[in-house]
C-alpha cells in the first residue's frame, strides 16, 4: 500500500491524469475497499457483557493469582484500566494495590474451627448465634448471617453494590461478592439479581474504554474501543457517534471545538454580539438602530431623534455641538474599536459558518444521490456494455460522502484553529498565518476535487454512450483516490503540523478513517450468559476466553497499523500503551 501511494503521488496534483491511470490501478483501488481491517471497536450487548470482561478479569487473576471476585474488586477500583493496575503493581507491589482496593487475599486460617454446638456473640445484633450461622469475611471479621444480609440489602439499595465494605468499624475491606450473592439471594432473589447487574455493568459505567451507545431510544448496547478513545464509531443500531464526547461525529474538529461550535451556531451569538456593539435601541420604539452617518444625532425610522452617545431621546434641535457635559466623548475611540472588532469577528464567523453549512447541505442533498445512482447502475447493467463492474460508482459515492463530511467539519476546525479562542498564545501572528495558508491550501484542493467528484456522479451517465461512460469512470476512479488521499493529508496536517506542534493545549481528533466510520463488530459470545450466572461462566472459563482471544488477535495487529497515521501526541501515548501490551502479550496467548 505504501509503495502504491508514493508511486503515484505526483499524479494527484496534475490536472490531466487520465493517461496515468490504467486498469491495474483501478483494481487496486477497488480492492482497498474490500480489504477490511480488523475492527478496533466492539459492540457489547446485554448478552455479551459478561464475556466482554472475562479477558480483563482473567489477566488480573493470572497476574496476581487471585480469585475472580478479588480481580473484579481490584478492577472496579482501578476503573477497569488493566494497564494502570499493572503499572501500580509493578511500581508498588501487590500489598499496596490490595490495600488500596480493599482486598485481603491472605487466606485466613481459622485456628479453632467452630463446633456446631458452640455459640458466638454477634457484635451487631448482640445475640448469641450458633457457629454455623455466622460468616467470616476475608478480613477476618465475623458476624451473624442475618446481620450481614441486612447490611448487604441496605448497601445494595443505597446503590453501593460495587463497594460494599465490611461491617466492622474502620475496616476498608470489600465484602466477597460470592458471600453477598449467597446471603442476599436467600432472602431477596430480586435484589441479588440487581447486585449482579451492578457488578456486571460496572464494566461499562466505570470504564473509560467502554461507553453506552447514546441512541435515543436507547438500543441497550455499549461500545468498547480497543486502543484509542478518540475515535468515531457506529453502533449495531446504526447510530454513528464520536466515542469521546458521544455527540455526532465531527472530525477533524476536536470535541471541545465541536461543543463550542454547536453552541455558537445555536445562539448565533456573533450576530447578537455585533448588534449590541453596532446598534442602539431607539428610546421610543426600541428597535435596534444602526448609525449610517457621522453625526451623533440619530433619528430612527419611527421619527424619534436621539443622541447616539448617551442613547437618550432628544428633540430635533438637540445637536451634538451644544450637548454639554458629555463625558462619553473620550470613550468614542474605544467603542469604535470594539465595533470594528465585533464586526470583523462576525464576518469571520459567517465566512466559516457559510461554508460549513454549504457542505452540510450538499451532504444532505447528495444523500439522495444514493437512490438515483442505484437506478443508474441498474440501467447500465441492463445495457450490453462490456463494462460489467460498477463498483467504481458506489465507491465514488462513498468517497464523496466521506470527504464531504470531513470537508464540512474542517471549517469549524479552521475557525477555532486560526481564531483567538484557543491558541492565541501558542502561535505568533506570523506562524498562524503560515499555518493557515498551509491548511487552506490542502482544504481548497480537497474542496475542488470533492466538487468535481460530485459533478461527475450527478451526471446522467447511464444515458451516455459507452465511450463517455468509460471516461467518467476514469474520472470518478481517479477522483476517488485523490480525495481519499487529500483527506488523509488534511488530517495528517491537522494532527502533526497544527495540533501536534502546540505546546500547552491538547486537542485530540479522531483519526481519519478512509473507509468511513467504523462499524463496531459484535463481540463473540463464548457462552450463553445472563446476569446472575457468573459462576456458571467461571466453569466455562477456557471456552469463553478462547473466543475473545480469537477475535482480539487481529485487532492487536490493527494497533500497529493505526499508529502510523496518528498524531505525535497520540503516538507517544500509543507507544507507551503498546509497550505495556507487549509486556503481557505472552500471557494473553498462553
Amino acid at each position: 500500500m505504501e509503495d502504491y501511494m508514493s508511486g503515484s503521488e505526483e499524479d494527484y496534483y496534475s490536472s490531466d491524469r487520465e493517461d496515468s491511470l490504467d486498469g491495474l490501478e483501478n483494481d487496486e483501488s477497488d480492492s482497498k475497499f474490500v480489504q477490511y481491517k480488523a475492527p478496533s471497536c466492539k459492540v457489547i450487548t446485554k448478552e455479551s457483557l459478561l464475556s466482554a470482561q472475562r479477558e480483563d478479569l482473567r489477566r488480573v487473576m493470572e497476574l496476581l493469582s487471585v480469585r475472580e471476585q478479588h480481580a473484579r474488586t481490584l478492577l472496579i477500583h482501578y476503573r477497569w484500566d488493566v494497564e494502570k493496575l499493572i503499572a501500580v503493581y509493578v511500581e508498588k507491589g501487590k500489598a499496596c494495590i490490595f490495600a488500596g482496593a480493599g482486598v485481603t487475599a491472605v487466606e485466613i486460617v481459622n485456628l479453632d474451627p467452630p463446633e456446631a454446638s458452640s455459640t458466638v456473640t454477634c457484635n451487631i445484633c448482640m445475640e448469641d448465634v450458633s457457629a454455623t450461622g455466622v460468616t467470616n469475611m476475608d478480613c477476618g471479621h465475623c458476624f451473624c448471617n442475618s446481620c450481614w444480609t441486612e447490611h448487604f440489602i441496605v448497601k445494595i439499595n443505597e446503590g453501593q453494590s460495587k463497594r460494599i465494605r465490611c461491617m466492622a468499624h474502620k475496616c476498608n475491606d470489600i465484602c466477597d461478592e460470592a458471600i453477598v450473592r449467597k446471603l442476599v439471594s436467600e432472602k431477596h432473589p430480586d435484589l441479588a439479581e440487581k447486585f449482579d447487574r451492578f457488578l456486571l455493568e460496572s464494566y461499562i459505567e466505570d470504564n473509560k474504554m467502554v461507553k453506552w451507545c447514546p441512541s435515543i431510544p436507547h438500543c441497550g448496547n455499549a461500545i468498547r474501543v480497543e486502543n484509542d478513545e478518540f475515535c468515531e464509531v457506529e453502533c449495531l443500531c446504526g447510530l454513528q457517534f464520536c466515542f469521546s464526547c458521544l455527540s455526532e461525529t465531527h472530525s477533524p474538529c476536536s470535541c471541545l471545538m465541536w461543543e463550542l461550535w454547536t453552541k455558537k451556531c445555536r445562539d448565533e451569538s456573533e450576530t447578537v454580539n455585533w448588534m449590541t456593539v453596532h446598534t442602539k435601541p431607539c428610546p421610543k420604539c426600541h428597535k435596534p438602530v444602526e448609525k449610517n452617518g457621522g453625526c451623533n444625532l440619530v433619528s430612527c425610522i419611527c421619527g424619534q431623534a436621539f443622541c447616539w452617545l448617551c442613547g437618550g431621546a432628544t428633540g430635533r434641535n438637540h445637536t451634538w455641538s451644544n450637548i454639554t457635559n458629555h463625558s462619553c466623548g473620550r470613550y468614542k475611540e474605544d467603542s469604535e474599536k470594539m465595533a470594528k472588532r465585533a464586526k470583523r469577528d462576525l464576518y469571520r464567523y459567517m465566512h466559516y459558518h457559510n461554508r460549513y453549512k454549504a457542505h452540510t447541505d450538499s451532504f444532505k442533498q447528495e444523500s439522495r444521490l444514493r437512490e438515483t445512482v442505484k437506478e443508474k447502475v441498474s440501467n447500465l447493467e441492463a445495457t450490453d456494455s462490456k463494462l460489467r463492474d460498477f463498483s467504481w460508482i458506489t465507491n465514488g459515492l462513498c468517497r464523496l460522502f466521506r470527504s464531504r463530511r470531513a470537508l464540512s467539519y474542517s471549517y469549524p476546525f479552521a475557525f477555532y484553529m486560526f481564531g483567538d479562542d484557543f491558541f492565541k498564545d501558542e502561535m505568533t501572528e506570523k506562524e498562524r498565518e503560515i499555518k493557515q495558508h498551509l491548511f487552506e491550501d490542502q482544504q481548497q484542493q480537497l474542496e475542488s476535487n470533492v466538487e468535481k467528484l460530485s459533478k461527475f456522479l450527478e451526471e446522467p451517465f447511464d444515458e451516455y454512450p459507452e465511450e463517455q461512460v468509460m471516461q467518467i469512470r476514469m474520472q470518478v476512479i481517479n477522483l476517488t483516490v485523490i480525495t481519499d488521499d487529500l483527506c488523509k493529508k488534511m488530517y495528517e496536517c491537522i494532527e502533526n503540523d497544527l495540533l501536534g506542534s502546540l505546546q500547552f493545549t491538547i486537542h485530540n481528533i479522531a483519526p481519519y478513517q478512509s473507509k468511513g466510520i467504523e462499524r463496531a463488530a459484535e463481540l463473540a459470545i463464548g457462552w450463553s450468559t445472563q446476569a446472575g450466572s457468573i459462576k456458571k461462566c467461571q466453569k466455562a472459563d477456557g471456552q469463553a476466553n478462547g473466543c475473545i482471544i480469537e477475535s482480539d488477535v487481529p485487532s492487536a495487529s490493527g494497533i500497529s497499523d493505526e499508529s502510523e497515521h496518528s498524531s505525535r501526541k497520540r503516538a507517544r501515548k500509543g507507544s507507551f500503551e503498546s509497550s505495556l501490551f507487549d509486556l503481557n502479550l505472552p500471557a494473553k496467548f498462553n
Partner: protein
Amino acid sequence: MVDFARVQKELQECNRDFEVSGIKVMPKSDANLAHLLGTIPGPLGTPYEGGSFKIDITLPDGYPFEPPKMQFATKVWHPNISSQSGAICLDILKDQWSPALTLKTALLSVQALLSAPEPDDPQDAVVAQQYLRDYPTFMGTARYWTEAFAMTSSLGVEDKVLKLVEMGFPEALVRSTLVSVDGDENMALEKLCSG
C-alpha cells in the same frame, strides 16, 4: 424495622457504666424506642466543661445498618455543630457509619468532637470563621453558651423563674410555661419568645 432487641441491650449496656462515662441514653417515651434522648457531659478542659448536653436521637428503620440521626437539643457554640439547628457534622454519622458502632460509641465520638473541633470542615460557617480568626472570642462565646444553655439544670425552679422574669416575661406566664416543659429553662424561653 429497627432492631429493638439490640437497642434495648444498648440502653442497658450504656446506662450501666453511666458513672464512668457520664453518657446516658433514655427513650423519649416508653412506647417508642426509635426516639431517644442522649446526654453527654462537656469534656474537661474545654469551654464546654461542666455543661450537660442533650442530643436528640432518631433511629431510622434500617438501624443499626443505617446510622442513627443525631442532633443537639441543647444550644452549643461549636464549628461543627449548627448554632441554629444543632445539626452535627460528623463522618461516622454519615458515610463512615458502621453497624458495629453503637449509640454509646457514637455519643463518645460526638463528645470527642466537642474537644477537637475541625474548623476546616465546618457545619456552622460563622462559628468556624470566629474560631479561626478570633479564637479568644470564640472561647468566650462557647463558654457563655455552655453556661447559659447547658448548665441550667443546676438552677432551682425559683432561680429559673427569676431569670426569665428579669428578661421581661410576666411571672405567672413564666411559671405555667416552665411547668409545661418540665422545668427546662431553654424550652420555656423558646416557648415564651414564640408567644
